């Protein structure tokens, strides 16, 4: 995503996590993120956006295992997660008037949209609300 930030233009980007707020500063520094990390440890906002926990068979499906394999092949060090691994993520675009413009709710961890799809959704939201 970092490589495509310029394509997002004047878009507010925020990463929502369900980690405790005191864990976020070190994580943002480690990843050198140019946008804020938000803490939703009770997963209230996750729930509002319809992001559920998935069964284990959907989390550790062949696609997810291939994804982890690719990350390891690139030299990424995978640490054992201390958080709930069954919680699904998601990506949402909200237009300038506060309306939901696009929703990407994956069914498994390997089902996230390409960054190009997110950039296109942001551009559509900008033109539709403009």
């Amino acid at each position: 995503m970092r490589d495509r930030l310029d394509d997002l233009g004047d878009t507010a980007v925020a990463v929502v996590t369900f980690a405790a707020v005191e864990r976020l500063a070190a994580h943002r520094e480690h990843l050198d993120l140019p946008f804020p990390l938000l803490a939703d440890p009770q997963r209230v906002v996750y729930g509002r956006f319809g992001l559920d926990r998935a069964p284990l068979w959907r989390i550790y499906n062949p696609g997810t295992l291939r994804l982890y394999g690719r990350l390891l092949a690139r030299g990424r060090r995978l640490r054992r997660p201390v958080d709930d691994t069954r919680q699904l993520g998601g990506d949402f675009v909200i237009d300038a008037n506060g309306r939901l413009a696009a929703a990407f709710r994956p069914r498994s961890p390997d089902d996230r949209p390409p960054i190009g799809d997110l950039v296109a959704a942001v551009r559509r939201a900008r033109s539709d609300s403009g």
Partner: protein
Amino acid sequence: MMRPGTTVEDFTLPDDRDRPWTLSGQRGRPVLLVFHRHLM
């Protein structure tokens, strides 16, 4: 479940510096929310 076209209910969450981040505070520009699975 929220559908595209519906107005998103406002929310406030603390950011990594423990400052409040509010959705309505971003009005006037698009917002991209990326929900993480878990920190790695």
